């Protein structure tokens, strides 16, 4: 609404009178202000010298105890000296502007954002002249051709990005995100310490974070983190009488020892918050909760699919080993994933 259309019940009194500041009328106040500003600026070199002294003289590992907290002395003192020096420059500049610079408000005019009509018409006319001069109107293919040619050049630019990563074709997926390094006979070893697990090592209610034994061989290769991000598992022992084991998974477990992927089916956090009494496993990232006593089905939270279970058995020496890879891809969903094979409540 422009000012003209606006009804004004009270007429515009015009700009307010300019009241002088204290420092305008009292020379002593102005001098005081002046002295304060100069003092602030004079403190800056002092702080800078203190900064330099701290930089060269304070040892890296010295500590400072302030208000019951331990600080790294060097970091804190460097920051305090540099911080206050910077702050003082700012405060001095603003104090100068507020108390000593002329504070007469001035008024400027505004003009609409649009150019004056003549200017707009001139540009339009110039555009017309330019277009005529370019001969594009008579030889139309020039324009189409140029636009087409420029458009086509996007193709090489985009296509040259096709090597950003391998293409997730069905074959590639089968080798990568749909596969882990678990295989028949691979022993379950404890995470970090790599000790092979025996069935007798686990008591009812216990949860162990584990890895495949062959992960250690990858330690120096780039594959290590990739393999670990898929192969991490948890091994739990529950009382076989207190859990549901479907017919099809009878031989996936050893006396109530079950093994599940540790990677959440939601967005891939490693899960291991174990509620021993309820057999629930909670993801600390987004709180998806899985029932390990019921083939890993989701009982709460944003995850949509059961935790994949790894079929295990024991080898001749009594060590727990995998019976093969996971039967479904582990980790978060992806478009080409065939999720009809995942375990669902009621499956046998």
């Amino acid at each position, binding site marked *: 609404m422009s000012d003209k259309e606006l009804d004004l019940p009270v007429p515009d009194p015009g700009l307010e009178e300019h009241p002088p500041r204290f420092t305008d009328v009292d020379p002593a106040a102005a001098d005081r202000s002046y002295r304060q500003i100069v003092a602030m600026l004079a403190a800056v070199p002092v702080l800078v010298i203190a900064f330099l002294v701290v930089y060269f003289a304070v040892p890296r590992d010295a500590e400072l105890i302030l208000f019951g907290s331990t600080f790294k002395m060097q*970091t804190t003192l460097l920051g305090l000296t540099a911080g206050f020096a910077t702050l003082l420059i*700012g405060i001095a500049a603003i104090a100068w502007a507020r108390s000593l610079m002329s504070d007469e408000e001035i008024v400027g005019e505004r003009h609409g954002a649009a150019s004056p009509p003549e200017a707009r018409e001139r540009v339009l006319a110039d555009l017309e002249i330019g277009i005529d001069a370019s001969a594009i109107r008579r030889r139309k293919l020039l324009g189409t051709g140029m636009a087409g040619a420029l458009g086509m050049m996007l193709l090489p630019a985009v296509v040259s990005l096709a090597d950003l990563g391998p293409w997730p074709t069905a074959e590639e997926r089968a080798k990568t995100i749909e596969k882990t390094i678990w295989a028949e006979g691979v022993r379950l070893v404890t995470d970090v310490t790599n000790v092979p697990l025996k069935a007798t090592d686990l008591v009812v209610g216990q949860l162990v974070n584990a890895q495949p034994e062959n992960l250690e061989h990858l330690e120096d290769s780039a594959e290590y983190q990739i393999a670990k991000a898929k192969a991490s598992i948890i091994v739990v022992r529950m009382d076989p009488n207190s859990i549901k084991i479907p017919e099809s998974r009878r031989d996936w477990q050893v006396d109530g020892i079950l093994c599940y992927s540790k990677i959440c089916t939601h967005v891939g956090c490693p899960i291991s918050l174990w509620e021993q009494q309820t057999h629930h496993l909670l993801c600390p990232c987004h709180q998806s909760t899985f029932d390990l006593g019921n083939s890993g089905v989701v009982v709460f939270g944003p995850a949509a699919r059961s935790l994949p279970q790894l079929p295990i058995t024991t080898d001749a020496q009594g060590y727990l080993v995998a019976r093969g890879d996971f039967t479904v891809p582990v980790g978060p*969903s992806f478009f080409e994933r065939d999720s009809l094979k995942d375990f669902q409540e009621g499956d046998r």
Partner: protein
Amino acid sequence: MAKPAELNPDSPALEVKTPPTSRETSKLAGPVTWVDDRIGLAKLAGNIRKVFPDHWSFLLGEIALYSFIILLLTGVFLTIWFKPSMAEIEYAGSYALLRDVRMSEAFASTLNISFDIRGGLLVRQIHHWAAMLFVAAMTAHMLRVFFTGAFRKPRELNWIIGVGLFSMGLVEGFAGYSLPDDLLSGTGLRFVDGLIRSIPLIGTWAEFFVFGGEFPGTLIIPRLYMVHILLIPGLLLGLISAHMALLVYHKHTHWPGPGRTNRNIQGYPFFPIYVAKAGGFFFIVFGVTVLMGAVFQINPVWLYGPYNPSQVTAGSQPDWYMGFVEGAIRIMPNWEWHLGHTTWSWNVFLPGVGLMGLLFTGLALYPFIEAWITGDTSEHHLLDRPRNAPVRTGIGVAGMACYAMFWLAGGNDILATQFHVSLNAVTYFMRVAVFVVPVLAFIVTKRICLSLQRADKERVLHGSESNIIVRNPEGGFSEAHVPLSQEEAYTLTRHPQPKALVPNGVKVGRVRQTLSRWYADGQVPKPTAAEVAEAEHHGAIEGGEGDERVLEGSDSGDAH
């Protein structure tokens, strides 16, 4: 609003002084001429006495700009030492607790910056604090612009640039947060991997292209590094320049007040006042972030340890500005379609990509939606007081409330443990709250705005309270009211009021008519000139000095 102090007519400051007429040749003539001869400086510099209005709320955008500069300065220092490499090495630096632990070079160099480079930890902490402040200041600035209607014509394009800056600021922050390759940031990347994968049809391709194959691979940190220090800062710089150029071209908006109109701008000159004030403010923002870096620890990555895909900590959360996405992801019901041999992961896609898309699209379109509803096509340089645009203010507060609910949901585990409530109950509550709380917030805000409008009208017609209680001969008590200054009365009555669109020769669609009625609904009509005159007349004959009102029977009509 500020009233002018009483003037002492004898004050020497009020003496009329004439500026010296014959100007001595400026001492700067030499250098200025030299440069001007070569690059036409006088034309380039334009009006260095350009007027900028003064108000605290105009500082918020400045904080964002200054924290960006601080980020550039501290970021350059960090690039000198940081190694964006995911090659695994054994740590051999001076932090004893992680010695001989295998970690990426990125993490090791972050430890190196924190423990072995003098001032390195300070600069890292300043950089992180400034990043938090950058996003926070942009958010606050955007809210200021929204609630005062400063996004209206002719500033819609600058608003869109601002939304671009805001969205890129989030991505930039996230990229930087991911670089140290510590346990927390790696968990964040794992989340992003799940988010990218969830995109229908192209998710797996996008994942393989972004990560150079499977998660985590060895390419993501170097790639994010390029994005963090080159691509997005470059875009931000370009957009910030455009944002500032348009600000200068449009001139700053100002608050309504005596003498202030859509055709003028009142304030202080850029040189020297704002050079000193804005320059000084830069140093204040810088000084405060340095002090924060000195005494407030942030992101102590050495306590988290290197990224390990088989580990995570309870209570893991992103930096604050990604909290709303985190919350949405947490409270989303587990909807997933399994069609044929495909998986449609709505439980991740909608709250992640969907919510961010909705936020940024909604923000970018708002100026056009509001203009369409109100049919307003004129230029606006005077700001709206939020109460005078009750529906807009209500929408804004509803948006904030919705954001706040999502954000709180991002800490549902913390809420559950701190307040000893069930985690599941918090989650269920939040699923409802993100829809219900914004509606309540809208209703409450609109009521508050209308009440404030009523209070304004009351003040204009009956004056302000004088804090003097008078006892009359009958024993009743009343408070004397003093009439407002013309300046204040003008300020309280000059605002335009939203009007419902009436099809007036032009065709107005039904939806638009309904929306426009809804937008204008409930406005307290401003006092008319006649009402103001009448109130003045009353005051003059009855109260003399002031208008008296009985305290009991508080209905405003009683006193007359």
